[in-house]
């Protein structure tokens, strides 16, 4: 259950539309079912009334949409930002990807977003999903109602939420939370403790499922390049469908490297992967390494910060030490 009710968001949006603060609203649109919410632009109170939703399936991070949306015209866009979205928002501002003046950011608290695939693992034919007191009930076609612990339905990015604090907004609805001491590196550590052979087998298994649909890249708020190297025949790494297992690895290593120090760990990549590849574990490895080698750094925590990969100190860790450190973990 989310702290703020849908009506509060709708009313606020209407108010800002009517007083001319904004001329459109980036929000979540109702789908066919309870869980298939689509990002969309609302221009009127009527559209908001009929189509706006806010709930447990509003996981999409709107930050990246602002790059395109703000370029469309003069007016301001109202955007709803959950705490983790605000980090992406700041990171995009750091990289000058959109004009802050054209955005009115409303911070909304987030209690974690549900992963429908977790419900689908044990229920077929989901007709509706509702929640009460931490219990989620799914009405199914063949097995009647099934009830789940809400916490069990959270994707990794939410069960290991890094922060409930909004780091950017023009106005905050509800209360602000704190940066959390999440266990977000636990999975990474587990992998680090494996042997190299086990790690290789693990990643080979995961990455071999990749169908190169590019959803991870296309949803990633850090991937806003005018032209991605993987689409550019001149880059030397262009590839489309992975014709060999090497290309899957190449794609994911380079992608993770390109967002290293810029990835805010919003987890969208893993959310959208149709093959459930835990892509966030690649990004988190870089984040963990950066924290350990160069001091804690959270991309997007503030606008204008200098990422550790484009910085240095004279007594940095040597690459050989970096991998030997792995040995101690093993």
């Amino acid at each position: 259950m989310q702290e703020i009710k849908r009506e509060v968001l709708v009313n606020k949006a209407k108010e800002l539309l009517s007083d001319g603060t904004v001329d459109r609203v980036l929000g979540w649109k109702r789908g066919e079912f309870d869980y298939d919410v689509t990002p969309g632009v609302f221009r009127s109170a009527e559209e908001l009334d009929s189509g706006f939703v806010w709930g447990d399936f509003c996981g999409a991070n709107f930050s990246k949409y602002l790059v395109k949306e703000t370029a469309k015209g003069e007016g301001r866009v109202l955007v709803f930002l959950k705490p983790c979205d605000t980090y992406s928002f700041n990171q995009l501002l750091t990289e000058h990807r959109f004009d802050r003046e054209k955005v009115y950011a409303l911070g909304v608290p987030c209690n974690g977003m549900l992963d429908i695939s977790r419900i689908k693992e044990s229920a077929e034919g989901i007709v509706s999903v509702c929640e009460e007191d931490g219990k989620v009930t799914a009405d199914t076609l063949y097995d009647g109602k099934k009830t789940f612990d809400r916490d069990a339905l959270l994707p990794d990015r939410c069960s290991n939420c890094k922060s409930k604090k909004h780091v950017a907004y023009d106005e905050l609805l509800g209360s602000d939370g704190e940066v959390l001491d999440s266990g977000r590196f636990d999975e990474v550590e587990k992998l680090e403790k494996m042997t190299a052979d086990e790690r290789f087998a693990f990643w080979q298994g995961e990455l071999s499922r990749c169908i190169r649909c590019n959803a991870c890249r296309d949803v990633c708020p850090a991937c806003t390049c005018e032209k991605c190297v993987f689409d550019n025949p001149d880059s030397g790494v262009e590839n489309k469908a992975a014709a060999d297992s090497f290309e899957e690895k190449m794609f994911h290593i380079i992608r993770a490297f390109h967002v290293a120090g810029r990835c805010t760990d919003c987890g969208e990549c893993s959310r959208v992967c149709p093959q459930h590849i835990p892509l966030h574990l690649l990004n988190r490895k870089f984040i963990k390494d950066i924290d350990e080698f160069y001091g804690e750094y959270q991309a997007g925590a503030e606008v204008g910060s200098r990422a550790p990969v484009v910085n240095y100190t004279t007594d940095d860790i040597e690459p050989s030490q970096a991998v030997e450190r792995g040995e101690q973990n093993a």
Partner: protein
Amino acid sequence: MQVNEYKPLIVAFCCNWCSYAGADLAGNNRLNYPADVKIIRVPCSCRVNPMFILRAFQRGADGVIICGCHPGDCHYTSGNYYTRRRMALLFSMLDYLGIERERTRVEWVSAAEGAKFAATMKDFAEKVASLGENKRLEDLRCKK
């Protein structure tokens, strides 16, 4: 006893100002090291893009080594500091993916360290040879 015929293929990226000159000095002093090592000259170690390293592995390299000026001595003042960070992160990631960590290395070799260059290459080539062929980062299409 069986003679190990396997010869690794090693790509060495050397910065123009220190390590490439170090390699030249090794030559001047006739310091032998394995011919498996093939050097590519770059202006600074910081020119080495992770993509080049992966490309080398894709095309059949068994080991990739990057040599640059000692930290603090970069011709461009700070290039090798960036190299150090980038490669620390990249190598750690490759290790995380289960790629043998001995296949990649960064070494600081000054223009005066011909002996170090030769010794480093010898050592690296031996380590890589002991790992055998690169299987984990190979592109089957590029196999002969």
